[in-house]
């Protein structure tokens, strides 16, 4: 991995993803799983869990860097709302490499909107 290298992951959350993720994560906020409730509180419909989207950003890095132990730090900002059944693209660029440590900047985009922005990861590279 060297500065300027890019990583990318695309994923399309299916119609029932938020139900599975609610069960897996323990976050049962109805804005993610109840279409009627979501509309009543002014949302366009059920929205993705931000932490699921962050997990996609994490996965883009661990897939590129050689496994779960490579990710040492990840920080993100959540913006806007992720929607079901629409493709999300995570794109990252290696900013610097110092010894066995790489810093990667990334974002997650859906329908042209950056739903995660200013993400920064620290990776430990395999020797």
């Amino acid at each position, binding site marked *: 991995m060297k500065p300027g290298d890019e990583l990318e992951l695309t994923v399309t959350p299916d119609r029932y993803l938020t139900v*599975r*993720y609610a069960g897996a*994560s323990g976050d049962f906020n109805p804005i993610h799983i109840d279409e009627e409730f979501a509309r009543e509180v002014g949302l366009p419909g059920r929205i993705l869990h931000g*932490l699921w989207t962050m997990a996609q950003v*994490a*996965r883009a890095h661990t897939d590129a860097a050689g496994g779960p132990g490579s*990710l*040492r*730090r*990840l920080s993100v900002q959540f913006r806007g709302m992720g929607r079901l059944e629409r493709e999300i693209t995570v794109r990252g660029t290696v900013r610097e490499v110092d010894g066995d440590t790489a810093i990667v900047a990334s974002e997650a985009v859906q329908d042209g909107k950056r739903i995660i922005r200013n993400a920064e990861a620290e990776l430990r590279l395999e020797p």
Partner: protein
Amino acid sequence: MPANVAAIGRSYPPDVYAVGREKVIEYARAVGETDPVHLDAAGARAAGYADVVAPPMFAVVFAGRAITPALFDPEVGIDFAHLVHGRQEFRWGPLVIAGDEITTMTTIADVSQRAGLGWFVFTTESVNERGETVAVGTWTNLVREAEAA
């Protein structure tokens, strides 16, 4: 919705979470992991682990449960109707493996009011049964000002 700065530094009783194999697999599937170290015990053992490996973001499962008392603490005073998860950071230590027991401490790191938002920042430190810090989370929750009352 005045931000209660007196809550800064407040901490909560430790939350102890036993990491189960099927829970790790369920979580790994929900986030789309394809690496067998997360998906079956045989795959994990073939790679040299004692059992399935939790994906790094599995930290939200044990640490997310641990922040619940802080989220609902009336002394912190979060207005749920206007709550937005603004930012998140994790720093990771050694991998979490099924069979581990993770103890998480939650602290209110900051409460402030700026740019028309209430900022509630929680810190979680999660430690395994060997005393190793496996994840430190910084959870930034933003609360929009309530409409003029």
